[in-house]
C-alpha cells in the first residue's frame, strides 16, 4: 500500500466515526469533552453551529452517529451521543450573547423559503448573518414544519421546539405564516433572487383496500392524525386501535393513541421486528408502554358492521410455506395507517421548467441542491424523499452555500473546502490536553417519567434526560476519536514499544503488501473494511508501520511509550464548509 496521506482532510475525518456518520458532521467528541468539563453553553454552541437544533435533536434525532460509534465495536453499546446533546441543551446558561450578529447592512439579495421546517430554518440561519433578506412562507400558524406537526409532545415538548425555532426567526426572518403558496408560477414572479423549497414529504400513503371508503371515519392516515392531535383537533382515541406500519411514525401513532385513552393499542407489521424501519429505542419505548407488535401480517380488508368498524382482516405472510395463506381477523374500533410518506407538490405547475420523476420528486443536483430552475433550490424531505431532521439540516447548509454562490454569480460546483487543524496535545511526559484514560463504565440508562403518569398525559415528556452527574459519567465513555495517533516515520527506532503496549493490538510492523494481503497479515487481521489502515513510509528495516484504525481506543499509550515521540496524539478538527466561506 502507499503511505497514508494524513494531510487529506477526509482521512482523519474518517477516523472520527460519529462525525463522519452525522449528515451535518457535528464534531461530537469535541462537544462531549466540553460536557465533561461542565461547559454546557460551549458544547451547545458547537452543536448549534453545526446542527442548528441541539435541544430538538438531543431528543428526536435519528442518531446515525450511534451505530457508527467506535465504542460499539469494543464493547456492547455505543456512547449515548444523542442524550448527551440534550444534556448541554438542558443545562446551558443563556446563549443569546453568543449568537451571530445579524448584519444591519443588507446585501440587497432577497431569498424566499417555502415551508418552515428544519431545512428552511437552516438556510435562514446560514444566510441571515451575511446580509440576505429572508422571507419564510408556511401554511401553518407557526414555523417548525413536520417537527411541530408530527413529533408528539411527549417526545419533544413545545417549549424546546419554540425556543430553537424562535432563535432563528428572531435573527430577522420575515415570516408569512398561514400563507399557503398555491402556485409556484405566480411565486416566481415575485422577484426573489433565490427560492428554497423545503416543504417536506407531506402525503401519507393510503391503503386502497375493501372497506377503506366505508370506514373512512375510523381509518386515518397516521401523519394527518398526528398533526390533528398536535393541533388539538383530535382529543380522544377509540378503545381498540390498530396501527399498521413499522416505522417511526407508527411508533409515534401507537404511543399517542395510548395517551388519548386507547386501552388496547396494537402495531401490525408486514415483516418481522428485526426488520422494522423504526429506531430500536422507539420500538423499545412502545413495547414498554404495553403495545404489542404483531408480525408477518398484511391487511386485506377493513370489515364494517352497522356503519362501524368491526375489525381488520389480515393475511399471514409466512415465507417458504405452501398451502393457502392463513387469514387473521383482528377486531378494532380504529385504524391508523403509517405505511410511508410521499412527496407531493400540487402547487407546482407542470410548465414551470422543473422536472419531476415518477415518484413525484423534483430533479435536484445531489451536491448543489439546485433544480432545473437555476434560482430554485430544494432541501430536506422535499428534495430526495423522507429522511430525518439531521439530514434536512445538512441539506440546508449545502443549499445555503449554493444560494450564496449563486447570488454572487459564482460556479456552484466550486464549493468551499472543509476547514481542518491538527494540533499537538502533549502537556508533559504522560500528560495530554484531553482525558486519555478510557472509562470502563457501561452505557448509562436514561431516567424516565413514571409510566402511570406519562401514559395519561400526551404533553408530559417521557424521557427525563441525563442529569449532570449521569451526563458526566456518560461523557467519559467517549473515546476521543478526534485525538489522532500521528506517526512520524523518521523518528521511529522500531523498538516495538507501541506494539507491546497497544491494548487492542492495532499497531504492526511488517513487510508492505497490497491492502488485502496486509489486512490478513496483521497480528489481529483487519476484518472491518469500512475502517482504514494507516500505513507509514518505509522504515530502516524495510518494513512499514501499519495501524488498523478499527478498534483504536485513542488512549495515547503508544505515544506515552514511544521513546522518540514518533507517535504523537494530535487533535484533528474538521469544520464542514459554511455559506460565505470561499
Amino acid at each position: 500500500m502507499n503511505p497514508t496521506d494524513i494531510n487529506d482532510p477526509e482521512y482523519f475525518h474518517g477516523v472520527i466515526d460519529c462525525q463522519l456518520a452525522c449528515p451535518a458532521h457535528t464534531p461530537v467528541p469535541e462537544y462531549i469533552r466540553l460536557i465533561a468539563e461542565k461547559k454546557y453553553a460551549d458544547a451547545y454552541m458547537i452543536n448549534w453551529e453545526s446542527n442548528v437544533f441541539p435541544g430538538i435533536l438531543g431528543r428526536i434525532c435519528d442518531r446515525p452517529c450511534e451505530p457508527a460509534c467506535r465504542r460499539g465495536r469494543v464493547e456492547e453499546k455505543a456512547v449515548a451521543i444523542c442524550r448527551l446533546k440534550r444534556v448541554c441543551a438542558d443545562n446551558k446558561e443563556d446563549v443569546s450573547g453568543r449568537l451571530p450578529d445579524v448584519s444591519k447592512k443588507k446585501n440587497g439579495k432577497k431569498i424566499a423559503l417555502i415551508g418552515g421546517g428544519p431545512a428552511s430554518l437552516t438556510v435562514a440561519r446560514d444566510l441571515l448573518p451575511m446580509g440576505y433578506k429572508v422571507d419564510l412562507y408556511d401554511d401553518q400558524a407557526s414555523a417548525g414544519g413536520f417537527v411541530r406537526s408530527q413529533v408528539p409532545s411527549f417526545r419533544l415538548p413545545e417549549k424546546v421546539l419554540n425556543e430553537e425555532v424562535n432563535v432563528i426567526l428572531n435573527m430577522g426572518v420575515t415570516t408569512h405564516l398561514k400563507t399557503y403558496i398555491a402556485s409556484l408560477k405566480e411565486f416566481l414572479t415575485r422577484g426573489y433572487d433565490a427560492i428554497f423549497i423545503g416543504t417536506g414529504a407531506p402525503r401519507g400513503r393510503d391503503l386502497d383496500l375493501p372497506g377503506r371508503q366505508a370506514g373512512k371515519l375510523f381509518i386515518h392516515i397516521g401523519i394527518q392524525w398526528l398533526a390533528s392531535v398536535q393541533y388539538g383537533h383530535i382529543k380522544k382515541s377509540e378503545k381498540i386501535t390498530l396501527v399498521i406500519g413499522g416505522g417511526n411514525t407508527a411508533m409515534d401513532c401507537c404511543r399517542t393513541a395510548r395517551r388519548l385513552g386507547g386501552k388496547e393499542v396494537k402495531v401490525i407489521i408486514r415483516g418481522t421486528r428485526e426488520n422494522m424501519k423504526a429506531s430500536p429505542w422507539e420500538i423499545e419505548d412502545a413495547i414498554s408502554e404495553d403495545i404489542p407488535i404483531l408480525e408477518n401480517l398484511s391487511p386485506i380488508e377493513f370489515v364494517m358492521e352497522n356503519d362501524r368498524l368491526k375489525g381488520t382482516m389480515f393475511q399471514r405472510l409466512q415465507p417458504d410455506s405452501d398451502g393457502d395463506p392463513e387469514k387473521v381477523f383482528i377486531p378494532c374500533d380504529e385504524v391508523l395507517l403509517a405505511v410511508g410518506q410521499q412527496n407531493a407538490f400540487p402547487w407546482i405547475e407542470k410548465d414551470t421548467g422543473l422536472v419531476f420523476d415518477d415518484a413525484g420528486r423534483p430533479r435536484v443536483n445531489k451536491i448543489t441542491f439546485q433544480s432545473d430552475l437555476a434560482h430554485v433550490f430544494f432541501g430536506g424531505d422535499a428534495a430526495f424523499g423522507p429522511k430525518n431532521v439531521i439530514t434536512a439540516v445538512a441539506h440546508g447548509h449545502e443549499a445555503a452555500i449554493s444560494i450564496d454562490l449563486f447570488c454572487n454569480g459564482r460556479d456552484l460546483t466550486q464549493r468551499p473546502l472543509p476547514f481542518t487543524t491538527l494540533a499537538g496535545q502533549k502537556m508533559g511526559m504522560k500528560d495530554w490536553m484531553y482525558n486519555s484514560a478510557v472509562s470502563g463504565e457501561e452505557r448509562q440508562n436514561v431516567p424516565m417519567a413514571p409510566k402511570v403518569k406519562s401514559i395519561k398525559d400526551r404533553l408530559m415528556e417521557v424521557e427525563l434526560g441525563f442529569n449532570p452527574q449521569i451526563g458526566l459519567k456518560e461523557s467519559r465513555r467517549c473515546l476521543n476519536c478526534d485525538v489522532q495517533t500521528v506517526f512520524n516515520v523518521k523518528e521511529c527506532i522500531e523498538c516495538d514499544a507501541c506494539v507491546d503496549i497497544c491494548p487492542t493490538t492495532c499497531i504492526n510492523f511488517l513487510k508492505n503488501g497490497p491492502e488485502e494481503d496486509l489486512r490478513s497479515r496483521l497480528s489481529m487481521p483487519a476484518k472491518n473494511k469500512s475502517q482504514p489502515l494507516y500505513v507509514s513510509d518505509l522504515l530502516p528495516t524495510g518494513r512499514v508501520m501499519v495501524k488498523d484504525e478499527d478498534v483504536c481506543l485513542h488512549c495515547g499509550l503508544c505515544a506515552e511509550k514511544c521513546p522518540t515521540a514518533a507517535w504523537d496524539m494530535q487533535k484533528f478538527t474538521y469544520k464542514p464548509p459554511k455559506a460565505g466561506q470561499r
Partner: protein
Amino acid sequence: MSSRRPVFRHPNLPKNDLGYTRRDYEGLDSTLCAGCGHDSITNAIIQACFELSIEPHRVAKLSGIGCSSKSPAYFLGKSHGINAVHGRMPSVATGANMANKDLLYIGVSGDGDTASIGMGQFVHIVRRNLNMVYIVMNNGCYGLTKGQDSATADKGSSSRKGRPNPFEAIDLCETAVQTGAGFVARGFSGDKEQLVPLLKAAMGHRGFALVDVISPCVTFNNTPASTKSYHWARDHMEATATFDFIPSRQEITTDYVEGATQNVTLHDGSVIRLHKTDNSFDVTQRWSSLEAMEQCREKGQILTGILHVNETLKDTHDILETTDKPLNTLTEKDLCPGNQVLTKISENYR
C-alpha cells in the same frame, strides 16, 4: 496522567486450547522506561505461554534485582512469583524446584544480576542443570543506577556517558555452553518473530535453558557506539539458522533436505527444526556451538538463534535421584517410614 492500560482488548482475540486469550497471560502495567527492550521480552513471554497453552497456575516466575527483575510483575499475573535477593535468584529457583518439580520455572534476570553479583550462582545452577528457563534481559548496563557499564558490555562499546568500555565482556551463552547447559539461545527484543519460538523451545526443553536476549536500554545505552543498541543489534545480527518450533501435538508433515536441516526432538516431544546455511554447524555439539559463537565474535557479529541443544543430559532431580513425586506433596507417612523400618535399617549397621 493516564498510563493505565484500558480494560478493553481487541474483540476478536483468539483463544488457545485452554480457552484463554492472550489477556489471561498479561500482568500489571509496566513502569519501565518508554521503549525499554524488557517490555518487548515480557510480551514475547506472554505470547509464548499463550501459544503453548500453558496453565498460568502451573508457572513460577523468579527474578533477582534490577530493571529486568521487575518485569515478572508485568506478565502472567495469575502465576506464582518470587522476587529474590540480588544475584540469588538461582538459589531460590533451586529451592522452589526442589519443593515442586512439576511447575514451569521462568527465571528473569539481567546482565548485572547474572554476570556480576550473580555470576557464581549462575554457573553453578547451569552445572546442576536445574529444570528452568533462565532469561537474561541483556542491555549491557546498569539501567536502574544510571547506566554504568555492566560485565556483558563489549570492549570498546560506549553508552550515553561516551567513554568506551575498557574491559572484556562476559559472553553468557559461551559460559553456559562451557558449564554444561543443555539449551542455549540468543535473541533480540526487537525481533519477536525469532524470540517467541526461541522461548517456546526453551520451555519445551527439560533441564537448564538459557535465553540471552539483547534488550536495548533506551535511556542509557542506545547510542550509535553501543553494541547493545537497537541499531547495532539489527545491523550485526547473524543467525545460526532459521528454525521452526513444532509443538508436540502438531504432526510433522513437511519434507526436508538432508544435511541443511537438523531436527532436534525435545523432552516433551516437540521438535526444533533448523534450516542451516552452513552444514558444518552441529547444534548438538558443544565445540561446534562454541566455534560458531567465537567466529561471529571475531567478525563483530552477534550470533542469535538456537546456539546449542543437548537433550541427553540429566536434570538436577535425575542426578540426585529424587522421587518422582514433587517433594512438597510428600506427607509425614511418606517421609517417616515408621519404627519398624527404622529398626530394620539400624539392624544393618550393627
